[in-house]
């Protein structure tokens, strides 16, 4: 038998190149975000600034109008997540629990729409939103995000729903519970963890999305967080990298933290969905 400490060291050694590459951008973000501006553009650059300037975050917050962008991202992501679940849960229930002609076709339909990415359809979506007068409106983003998350959500949820035993609901029916009561008191509480995990995935997608936001939004005050951060870099001669890195930190740390905390359940959830 191998020695556990030696084995652990070996494992970490094997993983170390990848671990370094993954943590490298985070180190760069932190290092640049707290540097005094003169040191950001100093040659040769150094990892360690002469002072840790947390004031950068405050300056950045005002200079880059990040606050409204965070609000827009929150509103869009929450609205899209809620609407998507509202449409997906009934469909997933039907796909998981009911026998009907066309069930297989519906599952194939889900698989096909799951594969389509916004970038291939972005021209058509832009024209559709323009026709409906939704360009530069946040609801346009909500609608598009729901559409691109529906298939994934229905797929994940139905895979979970199949693992919830039917017998409880059947017993409740025998005891005279109505459909609504059965849903509210038995099924939904049991399905809550699955719905929660699916919601996290939809939320992260919306929070991080870029192509649709860049295409459908025009005015800076409507910008979402990714778009606003990109606008600090794209098409500028003078990029204020200390502000940009502070902004990327603010944008990515909360999501990364949620992800790290929920990592175990997110991963197991996804494998249920991927394999089923």
């Amino acid at each position: 038998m191998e020695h556990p400490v030696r084995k652990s060291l070996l494992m970490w050694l094997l993983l170390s190149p990848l671990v370094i590459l993954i943590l490298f951008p985070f180190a760069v973000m932190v290092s640049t975000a707290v540097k005094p501006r003169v040191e950001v553009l100093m040659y040769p650059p150094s990892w360690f600034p002469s002072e840790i300037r947390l004031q950068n975050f405050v300056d950045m917050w005002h200079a880059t109008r990040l606050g409204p962008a965070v609000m827009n991202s929150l509103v869009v992501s929450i609205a899209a997540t809620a609407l998507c679940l509202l449409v997906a849960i009934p469909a997933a229930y039907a796909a998981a629990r009911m026998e009907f002609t066309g069930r297989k076709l519906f599952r194939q339909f889900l698989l096909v729409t799951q594969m389509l990415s916004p970038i291939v359809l972005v021209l058509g979506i832009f024209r559709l939103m323009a026709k409906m007068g939704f360009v530069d409106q946040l609801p346009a983003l909500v609608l598009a995000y729901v559409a691109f998350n529906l298939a994934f959500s229905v797929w994940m949820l139905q895979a979970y729903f199949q693992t919830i035993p039917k017998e409880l609901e059947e017993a409740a029916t025998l005891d005279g519970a109505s459909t609504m009561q059965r849903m509210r008191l038995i099924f939904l509480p049991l399905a809550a963890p699955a719905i929660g995990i699916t919601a996290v995935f939809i939320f992260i997608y919306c929070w991080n999305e870029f192509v649709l936001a860049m295409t459908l939004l025009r005015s800076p005050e409507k910008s979402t967080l990714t778009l606003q951060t990109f606008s600090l870099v794209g098409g500028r001669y003078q990029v204020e990298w200390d502000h940009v890195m502070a902004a990327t930190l603010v944008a990515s740390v909360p999501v990364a933290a949620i992800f790290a905390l929920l990592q175990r359940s997110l991963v197991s959830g996804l494998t249920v969905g991927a394999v089923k």
Partner: protein
Amino acid sequence: MNRARTPANGKIGRASAPYLLILPSILFAFWIIGYPIYDMANMSVHAVNRFGKTAAFNDFANYQRLFSHQLFIGCLIRTLVWTVFVVGGTVLLSVPIALILNEKFFGRTLARIIIMLPWAVSLTMTGIVWRWSLNGQFGMVNATLREFGLQDTPIEWLATSTTAFPILIAIGILVSIPFTVTVILGGLSSLQADVFEAARIDGATAWQRFRYLTLPLIRPFLNIVLVLNFIYVFNSFPLIWVMTQGDPANSTDILVTWLYKLAFRYGELGIASALSIVMFVILLALTITYAALAMRNERSTA
């Protein structure tokens, strides 16, 4: 009663109920995804001006102009190179990483969290940070290489056509690893330990156990990961857009970035819609492959 014995009994067993439940999702998909596809297909076979007004049917002239465009072949080849190298590199690296993470060792949970981390960060942010890190003068990549004595003169990684594309491919691999490792780990955790124990007792070496037991058993998972990654990477837009926008001199343009420029920068709506439809067809073919694999997988695990 016969009805009570059907799988979905009670009120929800009424024939129309399942259709009512799936109807909103279908309507949504037809509205936001189906209509744009129809609209672009329609636009792609008509003459269209830069404001999107369509005129007469033009005999597939948009497709002819697309295929004979001087940038088309280059973008197509780069898309293939990009997709094959990113997907191939990702899967080749992810299998050993998943094998390591499947072992028991101190700090495994932490290692798993770190390796999943790039997944949570948006590609846009990742692209922005790497663009800054790769800056020739002030970037920390050059600074770090110099500190270790690996570099004499600073390299402008993203402004040099020989380095820009390989760098993008490397970062593409880096961000695709978390999802891939996750699915392969799922496959590894479904394996039964006693089979491996038996093989070990029978004298199979570690390599033999991997080659003749692990690999065939996780095959379905590898298939899924290959096809899904192929589709994701083929469609991957933000990394390249944020880091190089296809520059220098179109040397990092792939079909999706070129498509975006055609549609929203050059106003070539006819060519852009034709390209969208071509890509849609390619994706559809891939999806059908995936569906066939997934269905086969479902049957074999059922």
